[in-house]
């Protein structure tokens, strides 16, 4: 059972993600997670204030079930076969984390940064609240996120998705090389 505890290498995970996308296509659906947040807005009544949310979310119900599954998948790993070690990022990355003063501790995310008491500090607010807002806003503006554009869209050789992924990297590189050092140094 050791393979369940150990982190999985990229050449296992990548093909399995492709398999998930193909399975959804076979089920007559397309892989794209960020649109579930639009459905959640509609369920919450956002259709009363914006035309964008007046759509038949029930046709997207399968996707809400899919993300409920994703939640359960995370829960199962954490309950039964979590990796007790810190995420094995490269030496150079550990050095960068040290430079920024971000603790490299066991677990999937740095909880010294992501925690309730940090929410109302400037770095905590920017990372969690502003960061989350940009993810939601940007994904809808671009018409998709990593699953819809970087995986499904690129697999279908769509130019719009290539543009979106170029954008993901412009933004991501700017945050990592300019905003994070400014926030933490």
């Amino acid at each position, binding site marked *: 059972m050791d393979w369940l505890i150990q982190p999985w290498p*990229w*050449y296992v995970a990548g*093909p*399995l*993600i*492709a398999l*998930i996308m193909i399975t959804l296509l076979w089920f007559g659906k397309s892989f794209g997670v960020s649109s579930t*947040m639009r459905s*959640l807005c509609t369920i919450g009544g956002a259709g009363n204030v*914006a035309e*964008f949310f007046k759509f038949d979310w029930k046709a997207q119900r*399968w996707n809400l*079930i899919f993300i409920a*599954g*994703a*939640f*359960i*998948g*995370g*829960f*199962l*790993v*954490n309950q039964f076969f*979590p990796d007790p070690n810190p*995420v094995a*990022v490269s030496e150079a*990355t550990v050095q*960068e*984390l040290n430079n920024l003063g971000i603790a490299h501790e066991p677990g*999937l*995310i740095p909880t010294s*940064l992501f*925690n*309730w008491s940090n929410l109302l500090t400037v770095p905590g607010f920017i990372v*969690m609240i502003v*960061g*989350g*807002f940009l*993810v939601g*806003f*940007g994904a*809808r503006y*671009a*018409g998709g*996120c*990593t699953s819809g554009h970087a*995986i*499904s869209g690129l697999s279908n050789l769509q130019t*719009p*998705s290539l*543009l979106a992924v170029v*954008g*993901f*990297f412009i*933004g*991501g*590189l*700017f*945050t*990592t090389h300019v905003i994070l050092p400014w926030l933490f140094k």
Partner: protein
Amino acid sequence: MKYAKFLLVGIFFGVVLTKSEAVSWYRIFEMFQFQSFHMYGILGSAVVIGALAIKMIKGLQIKDISGSPISITPKAKSITRYLLGGTIFGLGWALTGACPGPLYILIGNGLWIVTVVLLSAIIGTFVYGLVKNKLPH
């Protein structure tokens, strides 16, 4: 029962993304530092295999389980919305270390603080819907 299969694929998705650490803030930070092949390997191999599979589906006109031909709706042509929207998304992705799928998966991993990030992302989605018509697309 018609939804059970989506639940199962979703569970599999959550397991794969957790075990491969693709949901990890550290891995996204490392990716944008170009200090490891891990995330590029995951995305790259998924896209290469996905592209071959879609080529095969189109070539052989494979049908889905309900018997209709598998078709992928192409995205509308534009440059601004993809590049600008993508950049905004990327700014957020590198801050939170998580795109939408991983947000749900991290909460499942018992990291309840991530509900704040998810709620904020839902608010971001909502605000996009409010201002959509004023934005260049």
